């Protein structure tokens, strides 16, 4: 790859025509709008946003599976719409929560089959399969039929398939979706190791796990409702909230009327409310620490007991809340449709 940018998009957009049952007129759903991104080679780039934000649509466009309806995109220096046959030998994709191949084949056979589709001769393919399975801690399952694997192992096989062809640009769509904590940690370590091993490789990762994006990515784009709201290194994104004060409060259950009162206080930039059975958690982004007094006064006057108070360093979650006005959880609760 001679091009210095692995991925480049300009004003990229995608609209779907949706015909609802029993209605004659088609509705237009805009899944992606005006997305302009530049991802240099060697970078682990994160797309962060709630379900339905447009992450999968963007990946589909970049992997030549879907044509954009506006703008353009280049991957490995080639236009995805005009030169898909140049893009495809240089990429691969793994979608989390999915398995690939055929249940009647063993793990090794499935991986060998996909290696053939990329023109990899059997000997190097087998050597690579051995290495990948060892790294993913599943060498002992190489000869197990895929239909006999657990969900987590199927997903690991799918991940191995993506890395097997040594793509210049790899797209990982929610790779840890549905994996347990240990398996997720293995996958994250593997992803980081892969990119570090050769800086000509580029990896685009979508996730709605903030910690995952924070831990792994060199740069992160925050996406919501089809738009990119911010794009920078995680540290720089968090730096934006450096001037603000971030507090986490646990209080007795909140009455409905209290939240609007808190939101209306001068100096309160954002409040997110996480109700639980016997308590409620409140995350505040305040213009400065002095606003905290007014917050506590308001709670006390409303007979709300303060159970715990922490001052925190900003996280990507706070950045998202600051940009969108709601947490990822709240956005997903309000519109649970997947992308």
């Amino acid at each position, binding site marked *: 790859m001679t091009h210095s940018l692995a991925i480049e998009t300009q004003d990229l957009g*995608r609209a*779907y025509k949706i015909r609802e049952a029993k209605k004659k007129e088609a509705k237009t759903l805009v899944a992606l709008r005006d997305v302009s991104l530049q991802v240099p080679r060697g970078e682990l780039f994160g797309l962060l946003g709630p379900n339905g934000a447009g992450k999968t*649509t963007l990946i*589909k466009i970049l*992997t*030549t*599976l*879907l*044509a954009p309806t506006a703008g353009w995109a280049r991957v490995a220096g080639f236009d995805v719409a005009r030169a*898909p*046959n140049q893009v*495809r*030998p240089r*990429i*691969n*994709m793994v*979608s989390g929560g*999915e*398995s*690939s*191949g*055929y249940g*009647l*084949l063993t793990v090794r*056979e499935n991986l*060998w*089959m*996909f*290696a*053939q*589709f*990329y*023109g*990899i*001769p059997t000997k*190097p393919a087998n*050597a*690579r399969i051995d*290495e990948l399975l060892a*790294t993913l801690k599943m060498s002992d399952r190489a000869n197990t039929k895929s239909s006999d694997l657990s969900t987590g192992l199927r997903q690991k096989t799918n991940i191995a*398939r993506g890395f097997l*062809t*040594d793509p210049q640009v790899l797209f990982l769509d929610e790779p840890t979706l549905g994996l347990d904590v240990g398996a997720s940690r293995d996958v994250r370590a*593997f992803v980081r*190791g*892969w990119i*570090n*091993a*050769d800086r000509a490789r580029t990896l685009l990762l979508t996730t709605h796990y903030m910690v995952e994006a924070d831990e792994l990515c060199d740069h992160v784009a925050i996406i919501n409702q089809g738009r990119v709201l911010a794009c920078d290194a995680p540290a720089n994104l968090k730096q934006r909230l450096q001037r603000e004060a971030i507090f986490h409060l646990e209080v007795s259950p909140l009455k409905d009327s209290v939240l609007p009162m808190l939101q209306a206080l001068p100096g309160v930039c954002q409040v997110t409310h996480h109700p639980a059975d016997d308590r409620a958690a409140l995350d505040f982004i305040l213009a400065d620490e002095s606003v905290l007094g007014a917050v506590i006064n308001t709670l006390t006057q409303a007979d709300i007991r303060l159970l715990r108070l922490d001052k925190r360093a900003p996280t990507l979650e706070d950045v998202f809340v600051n940009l969108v006005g709601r947490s990822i959880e709240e956005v997903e609760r309000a519109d649970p449709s997947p992308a």
Partner: protein
Amino acid sequence: MPILPPLEKDTGWRLFLRTVIGRAYPRVVGMQRERSWLFFEVMLPTLAVAAYVFVYRAMRAPEEYVGFVVVGGAMTAFWLNVLWAMSSQLYWEKEQGNLALYIIAPNSLMAILLGMAVGGLYATTLRAAGVILLGSWLFQVQYAVTSLPALLAVFALAMTALYGMGMMLSSVFLLLSREAWHLSNLAQEPIYLLSGFYFPIKHFNFWIAASASIIPLTLGLDAMRQLVFPSGATLGFLSVPVEIVILSILCVVFLVAAQGLLGYMERLAIREGRLTESRR
């Protein structure tokens, strides 16, 4: 993370060939893995063959008709394979999430379809041969092959045209989505009837037989009957050379149409974005 040597990857015709072999593999090896297929895919069709043999015997039919039933019954395996494992296959691949992976890979989708066809043909030939051997032994069928080269040529052409048709239909069935299941069901018994799996199609009206000849197995079976049974030639719909010419034309038409429709399906899939969506 281990540092692996850079990969040398084949391109062009070598990649095409690798893809064909890769996609044929699950059918060549995977489908033989559980020995139970010998029972379910040889014994069951033989039961159906036996029922039709006994019907002919109840009608006091000439003994050659028993041979027609054995050969025709074995050939149903190819039709079922083309319907359920070729025509419907891209739809199943979509549902399993494999179709998107095939599209983003650098190979040609035509090579994927060809791999399915080669693998399916191999696995089905084993099954059909099993039914013919078992049926011929059980019912003491007598064969009199007049020309082995012609027989092999007819079989090869009929299979190329038939699997070419399956490759073409795979794109059509994908576009029709769930209706494909019903269409495959619809195309079972009516095709057994029209293609003359259990009797010579010469007994049909000329135009019905001619229309049924669009299914390559119709003429393939008719020509094979003429070449392996003593009275076959008198019961043939058209002469074997004419049937060979028509089968050759069908091969070209179906393979060209398969390529054209596959390209159309891929463009439509990328434009509309729905053909690679699994419904899970």
